[in-house]
């Protein structure tokens, strides 16, 4: 799982999209030959193919199917960025945290996620005190178990109820444009 992060001059950063095994990081170069304005950081380890830019562009120009797959995925990234912009402005931090935890579980396929408050505060673009408050609330209501640097999901259904619509909206969009064989093999059939 790769996080696409937008980094401000002050060093503050926020996640604007997540790329999983169904996608490509760095595909922006196909649009204008330049690097994307985001920083890509691997959050959860996994294997991936790497291709030099020149070779990538050569195939992009030569193959219609490659070109349309890349374009389609750039659309997925744009979709996520648009959804995130609205989500950050409108939804509560608790709902956004639930969304993020669900995504992490989808990608890692485990209910035990190694996460510090610091890390979550960067992903959500909020202060650590907000992360602390929300994690505490979710723990009190039995949805998660939170210990230093580790979050265990106890009630996925409860988290889904508390997450903002952005979780299912993004999931459904990706499911509609990426063929199932290119998505994760997780039993949940989730695509990040």
């Amino acid at each position, binding site marked *: 799982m790769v996080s696409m992060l937008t980094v401000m001059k002050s060093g503050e950063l926020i996640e604007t999209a997540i790329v999983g095994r169904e996608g490509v990081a760095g595909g922006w170069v196909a649009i204008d030959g330049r690097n994307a304005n985001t920083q890509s950081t691997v959050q959860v380890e996994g294997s991936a193919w790497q291709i030099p830019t020149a070779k990538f562009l050569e195939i992009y120009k030569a193959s219609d199917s490659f070109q349309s797959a890349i374009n389609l995925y750039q659309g997925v990234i744009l979709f996520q960025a648009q959804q995130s912009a609205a989500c950050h402005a409108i939804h*509560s931090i*608790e709902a956004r945290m639930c969304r993020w935890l669900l995504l992490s579980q989808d990608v890692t396929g485990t209910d035990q996620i190694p996460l510090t408050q610091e890390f979550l505060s960067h992903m959500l673009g909020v*202060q*650590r*005190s*907000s992360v602390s*408050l*929300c994690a*505490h*609330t979710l723990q009190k209501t039995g949805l998660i178990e939170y210990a230093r640097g580790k979050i265990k999901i106890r009630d996925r259904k409860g988290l889904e109820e508390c997450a903002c619509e952005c979780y299912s909206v993004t999931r459904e969009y990706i499911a509609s444009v990426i063929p199932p064989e290119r998505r994760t093999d997780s039993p949940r059939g989730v695509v990040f």
Partner: protein
Amino acid sequence: MPNYYFHLENGQILLDDTGVELRDIAAAQIQALRASSELFKAGPRATATLWNGTPWRMWVIDKPNGEGKTFFTLRFSAAM
């Protein structure tokens, strides 16, 4: 640069064990206002204690464990 720790009490004490390195107290004040205003965007369940009559405070000190020199305190309460 000194370290500032932003602790929170909302019926329960949530200690900040990491802290933030900031230039001076003015920077810490900006940070505290930003952090506390954000707390109220946490969601209805997280902010329930405020409406149940529990006053909240964010206090900023130079130590991670809740002891130490207090730089300043912000208090929030709701009157019904």
